[in-house]
Structures are given as structure tokens and as C-alpha cells.
């Protein structure tokens, strides 16, 4: 259950009600990919999903994003049932999925262009975000000319460009080196607190989840269920070496195994 105090104050930003999922190609005898997931995510909350590979994190994120239909149950955003993808929900995909025919700058500006933002303004936003993700000087490179980590940073900038209320991020820092990863975590927290976003984040790194999140949701695989929730009540910026953080790390680690 969500933090009761929080849900008293404001209605949830995202409500996941009894969501189950079986892919059409699945054998009917196999356990569900997602089995009766219930989760309420508050406005401006930072929630992280962790769990073993294949437990359905990407599937759940895609259902929230309206890209994949649930078999049962539904997802509400701002109290309205999600019926498809659209504006207001920025997504960063596990396989960054940049448009190969657009330069880094054009990729970042893509969403703004669809919203009809004029070129000058669009370029200004894109330049700022390119700067933010540390890719100054690479604006005119095509994705094929960028390293994996650079591509991922372009994808993050692209998701931020339309300033969505909700950010759905699927292992966005997976391909980054440790130093860049830490920098990007800081940047994400800065953007998140400055622009009041609701974030659903997926990671395989428990320490990343601990540094970033208000709440960590641990998913179990086949059937995909919520195994445990861990509120992270510590103020930010957090230190990984904090004894309380280490204790929590061990706790999550044990539940995961």
C-alpha cells in the first residue's frame, strides 16, 4: 500500500489497479507476467521498480505509459484511465531507441517539434538539455556516431525536452560508466525536484534505487507480483555509506535473492 499520509493529502498521480498481463504469444499455462499489481504513486513521488531480469518491470512501465495493454485491471493518471500513449508521459526506453536519421539535437527536439514549438525555441531547449547531459559539441552527430552511453544520454534529454509531468525511465543509466552515472543521478534529482515530476524508474542497481527514490518496489517473477515495498525516508542528498542506507541495502538484497 502507498504511504497513507500521502494519499490523504493528495490523490495519487498514478494509480495501478489490479493490473495483470499475459502476452498473446504466451502459453496459457505459464504464470502471468504481471499478476494483480496494485500501486498508488503520489504526485511528485520518485518510485523505483527493482527485480530480477524478466520479472515484468518493462512490461509494467509500458502499461503505465499506455504502450502495452493490460490483460486485466487498469492504470489511472490524474484520475483518468490511460487509454494510450501521449503527451505528459515522457519515456526513456531500455534500448534508448533514438531516431537514427536525426542528429542528437534533432532527436532531443523531436517532441517539441510535434507540439508545434517554433524552431528557435526548440533549438534553445534542445541545446540546454544537450548541455545538461554533458554532450556539448556532439549536437550534430548522428546516433551511429555516438557511444552507447552518449546515446542513452540523448534519449534522457529527449524525454525531458517536452517537460512531461511523468517520467517513465527504464534502466536509463544502464550503459553509463560509474562517474557519468553518478553525475546523471544528481542531474535527474535536480530536474525532478526543480520541475515537480513524478518518476517511475527501473534499475538493476540497488544502490541507485536507494540514492534516488522515495520508495523502492521489489517485484517477484512469474507470476509478477509486488513482493515488498521499501520506503526510503532519508533526506537527500544521500550518502551510500550512511549506516542506515547500508542496512536497507542488505534488506533489499536479501529479499531479492
Amino acid at each position, binding site marked *: 500500500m502507498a504511504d497513507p499520509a500521502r494519499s490523504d493529502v493528495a490523490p495519487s498521480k498514478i494509480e495501478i489497479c489490479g493490473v495483470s498481463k499475459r502476452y498473446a504469444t504466451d502459453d496459457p499455462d505459464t504464470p502471468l507476467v504481471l499478476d494483480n499489481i496494485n500501486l498508488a504513486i503520489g504526485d511528485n513521488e520518485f518510485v523505483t521498480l527493482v527485480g530480477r531480469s524478466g520479472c515484468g518491470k518493462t512490461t509494467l512501465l509500458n502499461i503505465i505509459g499506455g*504502450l502495452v495493454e493490460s490483460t486485466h485491471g487498469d492504470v489511472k493518471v490524474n484520475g483518468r484511465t490511460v487509454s*494510450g500513449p*501521449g503527451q505528459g508521459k515522457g*519515456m526513456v526506453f531500455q*534500448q534508448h531507441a533514438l531516431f537514427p536519421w536525426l542528429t542528437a539535437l534533432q532527436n532531443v527536439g523531436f517532441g517539441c517539434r510535434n507540439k508545434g514549438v517554433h524552431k528557435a525555441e526548440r533549438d534553445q531547449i534542445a541545446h540546454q538539455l544537450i548541455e545538461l547531459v554533458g554532450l556539448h559539441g556532439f549536437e550534430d552527430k548522428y546516433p551511429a556516431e555516438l557511444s552507447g552511453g552518449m546515446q542513452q544520454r540523448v534519449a534522457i534529454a529527449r524525454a525531458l525536452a517536452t517537460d512531461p509531468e511523468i517520467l517513465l525511465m527504464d534502466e536509463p543509466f544502464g550503459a553509463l560508466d560509474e562517474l557519468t552515472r553518478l553525475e546523471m543521478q544528481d542531474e535527474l534529482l535536480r530536474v525532478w525536484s526543480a520541475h515537480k515530476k513524478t518518476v517511475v524508474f527501473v534499475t538493476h542497481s540497488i544502490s541507485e534505487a536507494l540514492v534516488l527514490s522515495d520508495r523502492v518496489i521489489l517485484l517477484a517473477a512469474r507470476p509478477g507480483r509486488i513482493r515488498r515495498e521499501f520506503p526510503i525516508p532519508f533526506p537527500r542528498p544521500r550518502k551510500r555509506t550512511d549506516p542506515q542506507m547500508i542496512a536497507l541495502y542488505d534488506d533489499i538484497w536479501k529479499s531479492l535473492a
Partner: protein
Amino acid sequence: MTTSVRWQDAVLGAAGTGGLFLLWELASRSGLVSTNVFPAPTTAIIGTLQTVPLADILGHVWTSLGRIFWGFALGAVLGTVIGIASGWYRALGVLTRPLIELLRPIPPLAWIPLAIIWFGLGEPSKVFVIFLGAFFPIVTSAYRGMIGIDPALLRVGQTMGLRGPMLLIRVAVPAAMPDLATGIRIGWGLSFGVLVAAELIAADRGMGFMIMNARQLGDVDVIVFGIILIGAINLITDYAIGAVIRRRIGRWHAI
């Protein structure tokens, strides 16, 4: 590929072709092969230019290029539109694909008799078979390009608020472009081959006709000249198309 490597390749390629021409020239001049059957390239070129007025030659080239332009343009436009639409609208794909697969293996030249009955001996029958030569490779590669699109790219487009025709134009069509470009290049080569063959069979102008006419007159020089001319024009036009494609998509897609 770096420029210098590409340069080297070009020089090597030119040297190979030049070498072959040189061998041919020598074989012919030394009397190894009879000049009456297979004249040296220089003999053929000079001989032709002496007997056939340049204006006539250019007229044949112009006629052929006009036919191929219309046939190819028609095939490229229809092939692109039908291929993309079939890849985008599933129901349409189910309808068109078996039809295309059925007709595709038929050599365009097999349509010539029918084309003559339908369109007569004039230009439209030639344009029609050239159209077929361009249409099938282009429609198939456009379709393949469409169904091979990484679904993740379409998802990104959707999360950015695109749907329907806008998603098609902004995401799907650019994503299918490399396949389409390959189809266009293959289609051009095929139209060109079909053009000459069609002119050999039924025409009173054009490069194919020029060759066929020379055979009746027994003028081997003109035949050899015509073959060299066809090869050269195909080479130049294909290179031009390749260059345009490289400029458009070469930076983001390795060709």
C-alpha cells in the same frame, strides 16, 4: 570509409576497367579476334561517329532517357506508395502481398506482347514494361522496410504524441528509407535493362533500336558502340542515384 580509401578503390576500379579495354583493343588490333566480328573499342567509336550523325545518336539517347524517366518515375512513385501503405495498413498488406509475390517473378519482358496489344506500338507500351521493371523491386523493398521497422521507434513516436498519418510521416517513412533506397537503386538498374530489351523488340528510336537497326545493316561498329554507350549511361546514372542516396542517408546509415 575514409576519403583516401574510397579514392584508392575508385582508382583501382578504373584501372581494372581500363585494363580490360586495353586488352580488348590489343586483341583486336593484333588480329587475334576479327575486326569484322568484334572491332576494337576505338574502331567502333570512331567508326560510328563517322557514319552516324551525332544528332541521331543523341536523339536515340534522349528518346531512351525519356522512356525510362516516365516508366521509372511511375514505378517508383506507385511502388513507394503501395509498398509503404501495405506495410502500414495491415489489411491492405494482406490483400496486396500475395498479388505482388505472384506477379513479381514474371520477367517484365514477358509482358511485352500484352503491352503491345493493350497500348499499341507507341511509347506507352515501352513505358509500361519499364514501369514493371522499377515497380516490383521498389514495392517489395518499401514493404520490407516498413515491416522491419524497430517497434521501439514507433513507441517513442507515440509517447511524443504522434499517431496515425503523422507517425507514418515522421517516424515510419524515415525508418524505412534505407530499404527503400536499395529498392530504388535495384529498380533503376532493372528498368534500364528492360528499356534496352524493349527497344530491341519493338521500337523505331532509342538506344536498343540503334543496336538492332545496325544488326540489320551489318554494322558491327555501331552495335559495339551502342553497347558501350548503354553501359556508360547506366554507370553514370546509377552513380548519380547512389550519390544522392549517400548524401541523404549515408551519414546515419552505412550503405
